[in-house]
C-alpha cells in the first residue's frame, strides 16, 4: 500500500444478520478496513440485501429491495460486505434481476463490480496484512456462496496466517455445505439437522478450539449445533479474529 495514495471511501454493508444478532462483526469490519487505510462509511437506511426473497423465488420483492440497496450503495470507491453470500447476492445476482431493464442493469452492474466480500477486499484489493494476535488453534469452514460464487478460499487463510499465535488446523470436508441454506434450514429442518450433525462432528474431530468462517448464517447453524451437542468448540466470524477481537465473547456467549 502506498501511503501517499488517497484513502478509498468504502461503504460497509453490514448485512441484516450482523445488524440483528452480532454487531461486533460490523465493528471488527470497520476496525480492519481502517487499519487497511480505508475511510469507512456506513450508509444509513441499509436493511437487507434481499437474499431471502431471491432464494424463495419472490423475484418482485427481491427486485424492489435490490433497487433501493443499489441506490444506497452507489458512488463509493468500494462496497464491502462481511458475508460471502450477501456479497454474492449483490455481485452475482443483482445484475440477473435486471436483465430486461437496461437502465437498472447498468446501475446494478456498476455496484456489482465494486462490491467485495471483506476478506477478499482486504487481501486482494488492499494487499493488507493484519498485525493482531490470538493464541489459539482454529479451523476454517468455507461457506458455499463465498467459495463457489466469489472464489473465496485462499484470502481468509492468508489473512489469518498473519494473526500471531493463531494456528490453523484443517477441517475435513471444509468445502461441504453445513446445511444452513438460508430459509432451507427452517423449511426442511430434519434434512438440515442431518447435514449439520455431520458438520459438527467434523469440526469437533478437527481438534480446534475455534471455528471460523465468513458467513454469520452458517456460523450460527454450526455453532448452534455444536453447542446443542455439548462441544467445547467456540465460533467467531474470521474478521473478528483478524481485527484483533477474537478474545471477546464467541457466538452465543452472553456479552
Amino acid at each position, binding site marked *: 500500500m502506498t501511503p501517499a495514495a488517497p484513502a478509498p471511501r468504502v461503504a460497509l454493508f453490514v448485512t441484516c444478520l450482523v445488524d440483528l444478532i452480532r454487531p461486533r462483526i460490523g465493528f471488527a469490519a470497520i476496525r480492519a478496513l481502517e487499519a487497511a487505510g480505508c475511510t469507512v462509511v456506513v450508509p444509513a437506511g441499509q*436493511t437487507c440485501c434481499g437474499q431471502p426473497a431471491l432464494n424463495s*423465488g419472490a423475484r418482485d420483492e427481491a427486485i424492489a429491495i435490490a433497487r433501493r440497496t443499489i441506490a444506497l450503495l452507489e458512488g463509493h470507491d468500494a462496497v464491502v460486505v462481511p458475508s460471502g453470500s450477501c456479497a454474492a447476492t449483490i455481485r452475482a445476482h443483482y445484475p440477473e434481476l435486471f436483465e430486461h431493464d437496461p437502465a437498472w442493469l447498468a446501475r446494478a452492474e456498476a455496484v456489482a463490480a465494486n462490491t467485495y466480500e471483506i476478506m477478499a477486499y482486504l487481501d486482494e484489493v488492499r494487499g493488507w496484512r493484519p498485525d493482531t494476535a490470538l493464541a489459539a488453534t482454529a479451523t476454517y469452514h468455507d461457506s458455499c456462496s463465498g467459495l463457489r460464487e466469489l472464489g473465496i478460499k485462499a484470502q481468509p487463510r492468508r489473512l489469518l496466517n498473519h494473526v500471531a499465535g493463531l494456528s490453523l488446523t484443517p477441517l475435513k470436508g471444509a468445502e461441504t455445505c453445513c446445511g444452513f441454506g438460508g430459509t432451507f434450514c427452517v423449511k426442511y429442518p430434519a434434512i438440515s439437522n442431518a447435514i449439520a450433525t455431520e458438520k459438527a462432528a467434523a469440526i469437533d474431530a478437527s481438534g480446534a478450539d475455534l471455528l471460523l468462517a465468513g458467513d454469520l448464517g452458517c456460523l450460527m447453524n454450526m455453532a448452534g449445533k455444536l453447542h446443542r451437542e455439548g462441544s467445547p468448540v467456540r465460533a467467531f466470524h474470521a474478521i473478528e479474529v483478524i481485527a484483533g477481537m477474537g478474545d471477546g465473547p464467541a457466538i452465543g456467549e452472553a456479552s
Partner: protein
Amino acid sequence: MSAAFSKRVDAALADPILKIAVERTAGTAEAKRAIAVDAFAQFEAARTRAAAIKDHVVAHLGYYLEQFETAATSAGAHVHYARTADEACKIVIDICKAAGARTVARSKSMMGEEIGLPHALAEAGIGRVETDLAEHIIQLADERPSHIVWPAMHKTSEQVSALFKQHHALPHSEETIPAMAESARRHLRQGMLGADVGISGANFLVADSGAVCTVTNEGNAELSLVPPRVHIVTAGIEKLVPSMGHAVQLLRLLARSATGATLTQYTTFYTGPKRAADPDGPDAMHIVLIDNGRSAMREDGLAEMLRCIRCGACMNHCVVFRQIGGHAYGGTYPGPMGAVLTPALDGLAASRDLPNACTLNGKCQEVCPVKIPLPTLLRGWREKSWREGLEPATMRQGIAAWAWVAQRPRLYRLAVRAAIFGMRRFGRGWIRTLPLASGWTAHRDLPAPDSESFMNRYARGER
C-alpha cells in the same frame, strides 16, 4: 413441505441402513472421481468443450434428429418418434407384439424408467429380464431405482443376499459379494440368451452415422442386445451428437464423473441390424426417439438441463441426497438433476418441494461435467412456484411482509428493535427454544441477539 415429501424424508432419515448404504456407494464414487479429475489436467477445458458440444446440439436438435433418422434408416434401422411417455410405450409394446415376443431382456436405461416401460411390459403380459445387476436386484425387490448409475445403492449386501436366495435357482452358498455377483451371473445368463427382444436406452445418438452408443461396465448391454431377434432403443431426443468425435469428448467426462474410470469397460456403437453375412446380431433394430417434454424444456428456460449426460456426479456430491437417498425425491431422477427434471416431467404442483429442498450450495454445478447451472435452474423453479402461488401461504405472507418492511428503513429499525427485545426474553446467550423458530431450535441452539443492533450503536457514535 408436502405431506408426501415429508413422509418420504422422515422415513429416509430414520433408516440407519439407508445412510450406510448411500455413504458406501456415493462416498466411494466421490473419492474415485476426485482422483480421476486430478489425473486429467485439462478437465476444466474439457468441461467447457463438452458444454459447448451439447449446447450446439440442443440449439439444432431438429436438424440433427433428421440427419440421424436418415443415416439410421439407410443402415436398416426403423426410426419412430414419440411425443409422450405413453406414445413411446405403445410403440415399444406394438413392436414386441408384432415380433411375437414372450420375454424381453432389458439393459438399464433411465429413459425406460422415465416412460414407465417396466409397467407397460407387465400390462402387456410380456416377461422382462432386467440384466444390469442393480436393476435385477430392483426387479426382484419390486422397487424403483434410487440412483441413475447405481439403482440399488440403497440395498445392503444382506438384503441382496436374501433376495437372491429367494429367487435364484442356484444361489450363492458363501455370504460374500463376489459370490452373490456370481449367482446373478448364472441366473441372468439364460434370461439374456433366451429373450426375444432386447431393449436398451442410448447414451449417445450419432447423427452422421445413425449409430446408437451404449456404455456399460458389466457387459450386460451387449449380452442383452446381440442374441435376441429384435433390438429396440428408447432414447431421449437430447442424446444426439453430430459425430463420433463429439461423442468421444463427452465419453471422457462421463466415465470420470460417474465412476472415476477413464472410460467405461464396454462402449458400443450399434448401427442398424445385423448384416446379411454376420454370424450374430438382431434381424431388426427399432429406435424410438422420445420428446416427453424436452422440446418444451428448451423453450422454457431449461435448455441447459438438456446438456445432462446422466453421470450421477451431482447426486453423489449433494449433501441433501447423501442424507435422504434417491427414493425420497419421488421421481424417476433423484438428486439435483432430478430436482430440475421432475417438475418438468411430473408437474411443479406435485414436486415443488424438490427445488426448495436444496441449500443452493453450488457443489452440483461445480462437479457437473457439462457445467449445468443447477442452482440457477432450481431458483427458476422456485420463482415459477412463487408466481403460480404454489408456495405455502405462511411463507408467501411472511416473505412479502418482511420485504415490505425491508424497503422502509425506519420501520425496519423498529422491527429489529422489537425482534431483539422479543428474542432476548428467551435467553441472553443461547436460546434453547423459540416460538415460531422451532425448525431451528428443535435441533440446535440459537445465539441470542446482542442488546442493541449494529446500526443503532453506530448511529450513536460507537466504533
